[in-house]
């Protein structure tokens, strides 16, 4: 039954690993701004496609304007 020592040790070590990860993430400032990343993650794709689509979009806009 002394395997309980091993199990306890493992559980405590795992817990501590997560705890340290938490401390580091706070320290690096991950939680300082919780809003901007949620907006930023939606940008990336459009940026890459931007160039070829550019003229098309402007045309669409100008049609709308004339109406």
């Amino acid at each position, binding site marked *: 039954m002394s395997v309980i*020592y091993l199990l*306890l040790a493992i559980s405590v070590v795992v*817990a501590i690993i997560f*705890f340290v990860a938490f401390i580091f993430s706070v320290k690096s*400032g991950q939680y300082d701004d919780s809003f901007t990343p949620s*907006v930023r993650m939606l940008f990336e794709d*459009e940026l890459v496609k931007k160039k070829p689509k550019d003229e098309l*979009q402007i045309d669409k806009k100008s049609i709308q304007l004339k109406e």
Partner: protein
Amino acid sequence: MDSNGCYHCGDNLEDKVIKFDDKKFCCNGCKTVYEIFSTNDLSYYYELQSAAGATPKAIEGKYDFLKSAAIVDRLLEFNDDKLQIVNLYIPHIHCSSCIWILENLNKLSPHINTSQVDFPKKTVRVTYQSNALSLQELVILLARIGYEPYISLDDYDNKKKSIDRSLVYQLGVAGFAFGNVMFLSFPDYFDLSSSAYSGGEFWLNRYQHIFRWLMFVFSLPVVFYAGKDYFISAFKGLRSNILNIDVPIALGIAVLFLRSTLEIAFDWGNGFFDSLTGLVFFLLLGKFFQQKTYAFLSFERDYKSYFPIAVTRLTAEGKEETTQVHDIKKGDRLLIRNEELIPVDGILINGNANIDYSFVTGESEAVKKKSGDKVFAGGKQLHGVIEMEVLKSVSQSYLTQLWSNAVFKTDSSNKFQSLTDSIGKRFTIVVLSIAFASAAFWLFYDPSKAMNVFTAVLIIACPCAISLAAPFTLGNMLRIFGQRKFYLKNTQTIEQLAQIDTAIFDKTGTITTTEKSTATYEGMPLTAAEESLIKNTLRASNHPLSRSLYAMLAEQNIVTLDEYEEHLGKGLGGAKGGRSVKIGSADFVTNELENDTLNTAVHISSNEEYKGKYVFHNEYREGVEEVFQAMSKTLKLAVLSGDNEGEKKRLEELLPKLTPLYFNQKPQQKLDFIKSLQEKGNKIVMVGDGLNDAGALAQAEVGIAISENVAIFSPACDGILDATKFKQLFSYIFASRKAMKIIKLSFVLSLFYNIIGLYFAVSGQLQPVIAAILMPLSSISVVAFATIMTNLIGKKLK
């Protein structure tokens, strides 16, 4: 897309429309920004959010001070030979388009490596190659696309405030330990009478020591790190002879820890480590919840946040040089450009001064000055360049010397005793007497149990639920107010707001709007032809008074004038078909000086014959009358105005009878007025808006700043109220009073749990498992009660 507004900034297109690329723009500035974006493949900006931009302002020469290496060095966050990092505050950041364009700055300049926006704080951190791009060029680039950074004296003086994250760490430690201790105490929960003598499970008995000592190890950081603030606060309180609520809490934590340690050391039982860690975790959770901050607002601003870092000084040889504001001496000659702030008091030497004192007084209409006139610090020069001679240094100027008053140096929060603390005092006395009385009783009856009962009383009476009631009630109220655009500095402000009995208002900009948009005509009646001519003459002028008069006059056919001239700072002249009009100041129209200095007026003459004048009035905010009527029933009211008595009659009609009105009040007088009322025992809320109210706002128990644009301008205060919510002000004060009632009810609720717990403790039957159930139960029910009740109040608020 809204085709009525400018494609870039969304402003109403009035008479001048610039067409470019099939899109309409209100001015060349907006068009230029569009050109920059579209030629750099950045027109996606307009698709994220239509009309998100701002019109770039003239910035010529404004950032010359960034040439000085000493100034730049203090603004930078990081600086080596090749790379510089700067964090700039940009008030215009307001939507996803802003984030997108600012994070794609590298498309506009190849020397910018990365840029990252912090939306709640409205800042952008830019990393750029300093050998190819200077900070000045970067700032000018940002200003050119309508994102002008706000660089003030404040940035220069306070170097990098480090963010205090210790509460998050403490909460993390307590939560981590709480979870693990709960897990480790499971064997004990399953086998409640687990001692070898009473025949418990053999396996549990054999390994219980390892479980117990592990719990002990986990509780160490909770007591000595996460809970240390309670010990420090209790110690400080005791040293100044105050029994605050932290005294019984610290006592509870200490007794829990010592008794549990002794229990496991001498094998008496399994201790209360689960209750201990849980208690600290819940307490810190309350603290965390209370700590709602509005990152984009600042409640600590003083004049430094608005003053420039450097201005242009003219040397004896007539050369221009950039000087830091602190180095300006009496007798220096300064050059103040368009849109620049005057940093010191002085005498105007030449130029057409048209000074906007709205930062100082809340009055939006610019004041004209002639050479030889005195100009005061805090005014913003509009239209053109002026030269001035310095009379006083920055810290001694009329406005800024207000900040040397002691009221800005003492922290008022220390003086205030919160409801929780005043209850905590009585609570501590009662708990200690119960503990000693029951210990004394057991000493006679069964001495072996006396120590047990004594510690059990201190443990169970630990006022966890009581100290959670206020943070959750007030923290939730703070959020509810925030959603309704009433931003408070901290939860203590709500408690103070509930206690006030006097409300003092500033006039200009507070109970009036900053725009002067109503005018009445006094004088000889105008003919239809004259009215048409006046309207058409006004059409071409950009002066704010012309614009508002133009909007007020009846619609006329557009005719082309034969003659039109604009005399800067004086007035307009127009002629059509042998008829001419002059519109403007009294000395321009009639060659006489203005005799009525109390009101703002635009004079009219037709064919050199004086006709009459349009007198402008301050427009009162919607609902002023109702707010004052409602408040006058329970609060004493007064109006303190820095203005002259021109509006006295209208105010008297508008406000409840006998409301005291004081005019011509200087900033220092406002402060003293509030002080004198406080000495009579009144508790005061001051509602103001300009820097001239800053002293009064700081002196009053609660200072509330009214702001049309909360992110950009507000003096130091305890709360910022969005101008549109002015008429709700009284209902907010009323809601804070209700919140205090909720806290008192929560105290009753938690006392009820304490009495049950004390029954177990005094009779000597307190088992760890009872403590482990009772404590979270009382905390959770108090938190639930407080949250539900405050949400009910919040629903009624608009």
